């Protein structure tokens, strides 16, 4: 034994040094972690164990102009699958209980492959209690499957309105990429129609519930007893300008027809009825839309997804004659004494343009009343293309109306530039103009444009941009916000309008083409049209307004392949006008009171 070195003072000091320095190191590190860096670690710790669970806010509901519900919400169960935990062997069982065809789940999972596999996918919305009961019973054997309570759209209020209401769906990846700050994957977003235009009001605020989870992401309980939770805020409820009665009549009339209806209040551009037929069932989109439904809708020959009211290209036919008349009257080309002798047609160059009657000498008023083609063949030549085109443009043709659901086309309004472009300079002749005079030829319009046009005639050239939104209930401030219409005036004299309006009155109430819809109470004025159609029978067109002396409603109705305007389109227009103007006495007194006050309000404004 080396006694001099055994436990020598220097060795003792080395051990003391090691113990004391390690102890100091620990104290310093504790001080650093628990005092200096404590906020950083606390944040980490909170992130670690707190998981937000989002709850979709119910979307705002739609009311009609008298506050009758059009589109509501109802609770529904949504079945979801989280791919990271899901066992594909379960697919047949789930498909069986859902009554889905084999491959249904695989398809949905494939469609959503782009998203993180830790995010739950909606497999089926609006599933029955039976499915939920089955799930609850077998929960332990169904890893990666869960369900949530959500609200879905309720369309059971007697109005379909598919093209105006539109639908919402889970945010598609491309839109998500652009709006990452506002949306999360799996959020719903209005995809078309009013659902899309007023998405920001309708969506409300997602609610967030914070829960504590363990390291395996299993929920243990609420975080801070729920004090940090944010409640969902429902979306703003919209009052639409739509009149439920008029809309219902329009939908009923078009049940077995194709075509479109746009009715509006000429004083302020409020859309009263809006229809593109055939419609599609919005309920199909409130569920998880399967590829089959998509294909079915897209391959349907009748093209139900296509919004005929704003997207179609129709020939206006005789309904366009007033444009020529107004242009010529306003610019002093003609007056009411100017007459054309109608012998059943008009020879221009080597082509003979027919009229449907032999009207003899006829002035502008009666030419409109009887829809004399001969008169208008000649009038457009007197006007010239540029004047005609300019006035047509004033009435909104060849441009988009600016309707608040978008999704419209500008139609085609021929002009000198247009023909130069299509045929080349000097390669087209005046003969091209002649058929434009009676609303045929290369002229194409949308029903929306026709409604705006007849509204302008009804209201002496003053109206507002067409729109669907009347007011909305701001949830945050709980104030009713009125939408201010964007008024405009196309600057045409009252005198000119008086002449044309009188002619339109005679169309219905004298010996004109729409005498079949004459009505003492409704005082309808309007114009029929028969639109040439390269495929099949002509389209039946009617545009009109009522009451004649104080127009409350202007309307354009097109029924595809239905023949003459007076036979099919005009009676539909009359029924819609009637539904709007003559509220049934059995109706809710509140609605009647509301209706009367809107009427009197408007009278005062006038």
């Amino acid at each position, binding site marked *: *034994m*080396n*006694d*001099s*070195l*055994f*436990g*020598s003072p220097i*060795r*003792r000091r080395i*051990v*003391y040094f*090691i*113990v004391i320095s*390690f*102890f100091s*190191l*620990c*104290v310093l*590190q*504790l*001080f650093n*972690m*628990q*005092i200096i*860096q*404590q906020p*950083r*670690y*606390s944040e*980490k*710790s*909170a992130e*670690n*164990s707190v998981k937000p669970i989002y709850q979709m806010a119910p979307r705002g509901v739609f009311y009609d102009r008298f506050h009758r519900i059009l589109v509501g919400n109802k609770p529904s169960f949504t079945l979801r699958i989280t791919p990271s935990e899901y066992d594909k062997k379960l697919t047949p069982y789930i498909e069986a209980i859902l009554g889905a065809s084999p491959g249904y789940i695989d398809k949905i999972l494939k469609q959503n492959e782009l998203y993180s596999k830790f995010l739950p996918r909606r497999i089926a919305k609006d599933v029955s209690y039976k499915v939920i009961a089955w799930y609850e019973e077998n929960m332990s054997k169904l890893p990666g499957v869960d369900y949530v309570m959500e609200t879905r759209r309720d369309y059971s209020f007697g109005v379909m309105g598919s093209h105006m209401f539109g639908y919402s769906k889970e945010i598609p990846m491309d839109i998500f990429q652009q709006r990452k700050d506002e949306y999360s994957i799996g959020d719903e977003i209005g995809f078309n129609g009013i659902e899309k235009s007023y998405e920001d009001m309708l969506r409300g605020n997602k609610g967030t519930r914070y829960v*504590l*989870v*363990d*390291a395996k992401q299993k929920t*243990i309980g609420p975080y801070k007893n729920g004090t940090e939770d944010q409640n969902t805020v429902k979306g703003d409820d919209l009052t639409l300008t739509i009149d439920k009665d008029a809309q219902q009549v329009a939908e009923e009339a078009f049940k077995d027809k194709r075509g479109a209806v746009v009715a509006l209040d000429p004083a302020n551009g409020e859309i009263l009825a809006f229809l593109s037929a055939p419609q599609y069932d919005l309920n199909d989109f409130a569920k998880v839309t399967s590829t089959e439904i998509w294909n079915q809708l897209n391959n349907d020959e009748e093209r139900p997804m296509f919004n005929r009211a704003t997207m179609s290209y129709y020939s206006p036919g005789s309904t366009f004659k007033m444009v020529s008349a107004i242009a010529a009257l306003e610019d002093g080309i003609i007056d009411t004494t100017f007459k054309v002798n109608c012998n059943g047609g008009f020879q221009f160059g080597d082509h003979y343009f027919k009229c449907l009657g032999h009207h003899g000498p006829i002035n502008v008023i009666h030419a409109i009343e009887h829809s004399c083609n001969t008169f208008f063949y000649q009038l457009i030549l007197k006007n010239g293309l540029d004047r005609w085109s300019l006035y047509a443009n004033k009435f909104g043709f060849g441009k988009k109306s600016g309707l608040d659901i978008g999704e419209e086309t500008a139609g085609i309004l021929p002009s000198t530039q247009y023909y130069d472009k299509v045929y080349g300079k000097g390669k087209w002749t005046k003969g091209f103009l002649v058929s434009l005079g009676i609303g045929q030829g290369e002229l194409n319009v949308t029903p929306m444009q026709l409604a705006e046009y007849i509204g302008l005639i009804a209201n002496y050239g003053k109206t507002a941009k067409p729109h669907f939104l009347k007011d909305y209930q701001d949830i945050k401030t709980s104030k009713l916000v009125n939408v201010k219409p964007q008024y405009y005036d196309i600057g045409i004299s009252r005198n000119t309008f008086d002449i044309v309006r009188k002619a339109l009155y005679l169309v219905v109430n004298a010996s004109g083409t729409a005498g079949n819809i004459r009505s003492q109470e409704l005082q309808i004025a309007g114009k029929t049209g028969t639109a040439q159609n390269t495929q099949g029978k002509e389209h039946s067109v009617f545009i009109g307004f009522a009451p004649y002396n104080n127009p409350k409603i202007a309307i354009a109705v097109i029924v595809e392949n239905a023949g003459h305007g007076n036979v099919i389109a005009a009676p539909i227009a009359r029924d819609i006008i009637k539904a709007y103007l003559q509220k049934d006495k059995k109706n809710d007194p509140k609605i009647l009171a509301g209706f009367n006050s809107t009427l009197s309000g408007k009278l005062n404004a006038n």
Partner: protein
Amino acid sequence: MQISYKLQDRFDFAIFIPTIILIIFGLLAIFSSTYSHPTAHGNFQKQVFFVVVSIIAFLITFSLPQRTFNVFAIGIYFASLFFLVAVLIAGKTIFGAKAWFGIGGFGFQPSEFAKLGTILMLASWLTYKNRDINNLKDIGVAFMIGFAPIMLIMLEPDTGTSIVFSIITVAIIFWSGISLFGMFVVISPLIVVLASMLGTIAFIIALLLVVAALFFFKKDIFNCVVVFVINLSSGFFFDYIYKVLKPHQQKRILTFLDPTSDPLGSGYNALQAKVAIGSGGILGKGYLHGNQTQLRFIPAQWTDFIYCVIGEEFGFIGSIIVITCFFIIFIRLLKLSSNAKDQFSVLVIIGVLTLLFSHFAINVGMNLGITPVIGLPLPFLSYGGSSLLVNMILIGIVLNIYKNRKLHT
């Protein structure tokens, strides 16, 4: 010499009281981390039982005649070796290591008892008459006494405990007066092994340093060659060992070398432990209110990560109290080593000090993120009967030595 019958003179409260405080902290932390746990909720009651058994064992050890320890050293040591071999054959595997015997619902861990055996054996052998600690043969035997259990424990495998045995062996040899050269002979292979794990270049540099040191000591050529060969072969040997290690152990060593490389594996626990402690702040989140603990972010927290329960729920204050208790025990053990009545007793106390300190340093260091993640219990606090029992027996031996420091035999 006069025997004082004052209690303080016969019983060292400076060690006993901090020990009891640590045990109480341990019970609190075990309760907090297990009471709502689906499988471990019975651990608190078991630990209370272990505490009772351990205190009885402590009292027995404290009351034994002092020479018992020296006399039974060889017996205890070889019994330990026997159990270490037996556990490799018939043991139960828990957490990937074959280190337990199952006895009626309780696990018995032979490596814990081997600590007792090895400390006593080393102390006894090194203080046996006419030992020369600077004789290469005597160093070799002392080294072998430590090395035998280390080898067996590495086979379980239990890296942490092997490291502790190495430290105990080196520390006892160091304290018994080995020369600087002797110390070099003992320590240099360890450094070479560590370097070999870091890569070939580090291994070569370490060997060059060994050669340089051999020139410095100016020993004869025979000694130089022997030492160099020992170093070289241990480097290769441990490289071989590394290759036969289980993947999870290799991973631990890699994580040890680069803790950030594996955030969800063994580094994950270390990170979560730091988050738990750091988020505790000055006063802690309150008992049973630490979300890291209550939400079970750290697996089996009641064993190796018990310290972060205290860090999270009792904050800086609680954490400091715990390490201060340890500090008092260590300083007190050093103090006692200088007035024990014989060299055997001194080496036993140094062994106990080294054992407790190395556990403490590795465990708390791991919890605080200053040492690598090596699975070792925190003495007196971590859940586990064998460890607590052996630690209390060791404290009993130390207090027995203290009680008898003035007695002549």
